[in-house]
């Protein structure tokens, strides 16, 4: 019962944050790249900086696109004409911190999710092939996986980034970063899945199906791959936060999607000027969202893991 409750709480926290991020345009009162140079480093809850306006619900403001298709300019809240509202303050360029956190999440979370999907897909394909066919294929693929696991992941990630061009448009950089993270992270899921496939292919119903003349493709898709879903789901719960963090670190080091496009990493990069972060704590605002998101994902992953263990045992 407690596990069920935990699953619900963690699931709804994660879902709520994802909704916030997917519809960031609606919740963000300002364009995250718009600079209010007259009011840099405004403290949080600065409302009405100019003196003749007030905060209002459901205002019209900057134009954004929902899910990349529908253009819209309605916002949850904003300032009436002449006023300004900065709920989480502004950064040194006078950009609204709340809008940067929300819209930055789009880059970071999407990159993390794409990377996790890619890593799981590669892991599934390589792990299944290695486990099912065995022999030389298995040997080569697992040696390759060992190679990837023998390097500390952050070094591997940065070196891979170094090997690829860095003067690109934000869109290209985004795809590049997501695919590097995914391509360097496939080894661990591949190993896990190989182990599962090794035991799955020796099951009696698989032998029976083989005896009836089932093709490899049928065996794989019908009997073997479905056995890996549980592990894939648990791994997704572990990998997504890890890869979000990887994107954040790349952007933090200035190797991710560049300014002025916001990402959690580039928003957090003020931490590299510690004195600024000491005096303006709201420079750490992305952590307010990241922490519950990561906690939620970890709780989800561990609950799923326990369930899988209970189910198999």
């Amino acid at each position, binding site marked *: 019962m407690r596990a069920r409750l935990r699953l619900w709480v963690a699931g709804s926290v994660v879902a709520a944050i994802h909704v916030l991020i997917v519809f960031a345009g609606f919740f963000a009162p300002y364009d995250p790249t718009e600079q209010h140079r007259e009011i840099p480093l405004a403290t949080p809850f600065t409302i009405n900086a100019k003196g003749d306006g007030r905060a209002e619900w459901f205002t019209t403001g900057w134009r954004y696109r929902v899910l990349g298709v529908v253009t819209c300019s309605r916002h949850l809240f904003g300032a009436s004409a002449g006023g300004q509202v900065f709920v989480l303050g502004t950064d040194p360029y006078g950009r609204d911190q709340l809008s940067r956190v929300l819209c930055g999440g789009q880059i970071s979370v999407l990159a993390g999710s794409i990377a996790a999907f890619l890593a799981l897909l590669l892991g599934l394909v390589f792990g299944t092939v290695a486990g099912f066919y065995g022999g030389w294929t298995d040997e080569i693929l697992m*040696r390759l996986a*060992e*190679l990837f*696991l*023998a*390097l*500390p*992941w*952050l*070094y*591997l990630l*940065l*070196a*891979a*980034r*170094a*090997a*690829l*061009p*860095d003067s690109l448009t934000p869109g290209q950089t985004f795809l590049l970063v997501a695919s590097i993270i995914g391509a360097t992270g496939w080894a661990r899921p591949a190993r896990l899945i190989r182990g599962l496939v090794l035991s799955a292919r020796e099951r009696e119903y698989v032998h029976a199906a083989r005896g009836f003349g089932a093709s490899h493709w049928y065996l794989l898709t019908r009997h073997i791959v479905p056995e890996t879903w549980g592990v894939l789901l648990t791994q997704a719960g572990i990998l997504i*936060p890890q890869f979000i*963090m990887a994107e*954040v*670190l790349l952007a*933090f*080091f*200035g*190797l991710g999607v560049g300014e002025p496009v916001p990402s959690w990493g580039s928003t*957090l990069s003020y*931490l*590299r000027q*510690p*004195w600024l*972060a*000491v005096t303006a*704590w709201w420079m*750490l605002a992305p*952590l307010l969202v*990241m*922490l519950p998101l*990561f*906690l939620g*994902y*970890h*709780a989800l992953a*561990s609950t799923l893991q326990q369930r899988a263990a209970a189910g198999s045992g």
Partner: protein
Amino acid sequence: MLKSYIARRLLNSMLLLVAISMLSFLFLEIAPGRFLDEMRLDPRVSPDTIYAMRQQRGMNDPLPVRYGRWAGGALRGDFGLSLAYGVPVLNLALPRMRNTLLLTITALVLAWVICLPCGVWTAARPRSLAARLSGPFTSLLLSVPELLAAGILLLLALRTGYFPAGGMFSPGGRPAGTIRAVADASRHMLIPVLILTLAVVPLLLRHVRAALESASGAPFVQAARGLGIPERRLWLRHILRVAANPLISLMGLSVAGLISSSLLVDVLLGWPGLGPLFLDAVAVRDTPVVISVLMLSALFLVAGNLAADLLLYACDPRIRTE
């Protein structure tokens, strides 16, 4: 027996390192964007000059030749010249590697010193308050990104001013006298080591507890209890020994996490370790430095795993009979 075991492990590690070196060399050498590319934009530098500079650095030779030269040199401890600084890479990397190792090894030892007693305590008394709190506590710590832990500790250090944050020595450089220098450096190590320890403790604690709990379920434990062996002796002398096997392999693995975390800590706190060197080299595409640091980090990991294997051989009689 021991000899063949060590030889097999060593051979495996060597092959792994060679494969890593080939892969990283190939990958970085075919990468677009070269170190001297920016100079082409400068009208004062003629193409001939750039060609001569490339020739001087041996960048015009075919790929296998370059790899052969690099690998041959690396075997003799010569990792080539840094493109940016023009000095041997090893001269740049070795002192920094020493600093990084200082942090990571201290953190590793500290983490084990914390986790072993805590793990034994919580496994032996599963109903105590500490044991019940340790589960939520470790999962909270596990999901806190290192960046956050590092940021908070850094801000705390700056706010209170009790601990120096940043660098390895106080402003003014290394103090005269060994004792003074060690004292100053250890004060500066406090925050980074704390961050690194926090990064490994939760996972380690969990594994220690799980390993001990599974070992304590074995029939021999019940037999020992029945023979009247006191609890303390039972846990420390018998169960811990059986549980050591997975924990020793874990030690080798936790080196990997520590090395990655130390990159972040180095950069954030200005610790003169491998992190800042690597990051700068990545930014300016100083390939020899990138490859060498990558190799060094792989070397740490392989060495950590090798040490774990040897320790395992020493501790676990089951491996010796294989």
